[in-house]
């Protein structure tokens, strides 16, 4: 009796665990099937080389490059903000700050990542853009600079928290040897601990990039909805995610090419984040072997 019950429970638990596999399979199938249908109607060459993305206009062009450049531009600006600040925080917390201070600061920094992204979008549009416009006269109301900046603030905790873990994992003996040679804390950080923790820091940055690439609401609100192949941070652009939102809000017929464009954009996004996440996963495993 008990044995049957145990068996039933174990099966139920196993099925629950397998739901995560079904989710992955579902995501890949949905994206692949719809993207396949999309590429039956749109040439792959046009998709990867055309610099115009206008599926919702009468003159239709299906070049993913403008959406891709918008995504990469906003993410690049975000990393430009998050990397120096996040790394400075990590070095400060691991090399300078008292342990007590660290236990309070780390959860407070996590707060930055807990704020809903639609709120960050509001900040970017109504606070950051007007502020920057007072310095940069020609700046458009929608632009990748403020969206990227605010996104950078949001991903600070990803960089700082994971980098700090990596710095803390550096054996104390290395640090002590450096101090013994008469180095200051900063010299120790730059010459010893940061290089020793470099793979962990790289992992944190890759995960932060991946998070920025997939971020939706901030860019949908503040970066605009105009696909544009540019690296100018002052003009409106559109990211892959913002395009998906734009189409979802509109009235697009199911089974039309327009409907499938969001899956084409989706699979591009998925491939990018999947590669980044896999690289970070691979690096993390390699680095774990080094210290344990």
């Amino acid at each position: 009796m008990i044995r049957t019950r145990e068996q039933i429970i174990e099966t139920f638990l196993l099925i629950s665990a397998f739901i995560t596999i079904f989710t992955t399979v579902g995501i890949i199938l949905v994206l692949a099937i719809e993207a396949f249908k999309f590429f039956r109607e749109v040439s792959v060459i046009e998709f990867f080389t055309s610099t115009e993305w206008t599926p919702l206009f009468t003159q239709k062009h299906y070049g993913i490059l403008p959406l891709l450049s918008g995504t990469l531009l906003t993410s690049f600006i975000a990393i430009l903000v998050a990397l120096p600040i996040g790394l400075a925080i990590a070095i400060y917390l691991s090399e300078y700050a008292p342990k007590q201070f660290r236990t309070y600061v780390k959860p407070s920094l996590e707060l930055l990542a807990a704020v809903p992204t639609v709120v960050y979008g509001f900040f970017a549009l109504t606070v950051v853009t007007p502020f920057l416009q007072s310095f940069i006269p020609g700046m458009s109301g929608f632009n990748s600079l403020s969206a990227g900046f605010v996104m950078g603030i949001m991903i600070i905790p990803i960089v700082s928290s994971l980098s700090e873990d990596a710095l803390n994992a550096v054996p104390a003996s290395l640090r002590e040897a450096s101090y013994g040679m008469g180095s200051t804390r900063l010299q120790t950080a730059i010459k010893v601990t940061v290089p020793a923790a470099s793979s962990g820091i790289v992992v944190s940055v890759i995960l932060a990039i991946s998070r920025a690439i997939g971020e939706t609401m901030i860019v949908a609100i503040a970066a605009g909805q105009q696909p544009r192949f540019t690296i100018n941070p002052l003009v409106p652009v559109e990211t892959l995610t913002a395009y998906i939102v734009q189409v979802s809000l509109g009235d697009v017929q199911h089974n039309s090419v327009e409907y499938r464009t969001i899956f084409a954009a989706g699979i591009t996004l998925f491939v990018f984040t999947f590669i980044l996440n896999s690289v970070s996963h691979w690096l993390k495993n390699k680095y774990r072997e080094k210290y344990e």
Partner: protein
Amino acid sequence: MNRITLNRIKDKGFLVTGIISTFIGLVLLLIFMADIFIEGAPRISWKFIVSLPSRIPERAGIYTAMMGSVWVLILTTIISFPIGVSAGIYLEEYAKQGRLSRLLEVNISNLAGVPSIIYGLLGLEIFARVMRLGSSVLAGSITLALLILPIIIVATRESIKAVPQSIRDASYALGASKWQTIYRQVLPASFGGILTGVILALSRAVGEAAPLIVVGALAYVPFAPRSPLDDFSILPIQIFNWISRPQHGFIVNAAAAIIILLIITFAMNGIAIYLRSRWQKRVSW
């Protein structure tokens, strides 16, 4: 000035940089919040919370969006809690070291990195279209449940891992079966941690807008949902909609609705942190 003094000055210089960096994000967040509060607080009233949406900003309220968020929160909890905790238990207590558990682990960590909007595409195609749920609260909630599943599983595993083996051995020695041991010993001992993880995951779900926009949640619904198959809106989508309108009155409404959303998010985070600290104090092996 000799090199030693210079290096000391650089060292102190970085100390200042580090402190500034640590607080710059939080200070900016505080400035943003203050700005939102000044703009939105005067708009908040009981009437704002219980009013239906409207074309006139001064008459519009968040009732339908708020009820939508409550529906989504409840359904997402009902779906994700049992599945996530079960999967966590399986991986920690049952799965044997091998190819299968390795596959499950890698898969879960990969899922945690998939952008939320991709889950929206999954929900749109599978739940809204193939399963014919339409753009309903249920379709949205299943989508969000899948989105937060990895967070719940990881939290469950970590809490269960913290329970010492001796507790299990003692239970087995008294003749308990595996499930009896888990249900009566391991789960009660790790429940605080599990609950913390679930609440944190749900607070993330409350703030998500992108996947639900893709599933088809609307910016405007005339009534609050009455069943899981009704159309719905949620607070973040209502905020997004108000932000995208030109009239200043709607920006004020958005600020007011953001204050309410932030109160909900921070309250959930606060409860989670409180539970974690209480649980850590009480259970010491």
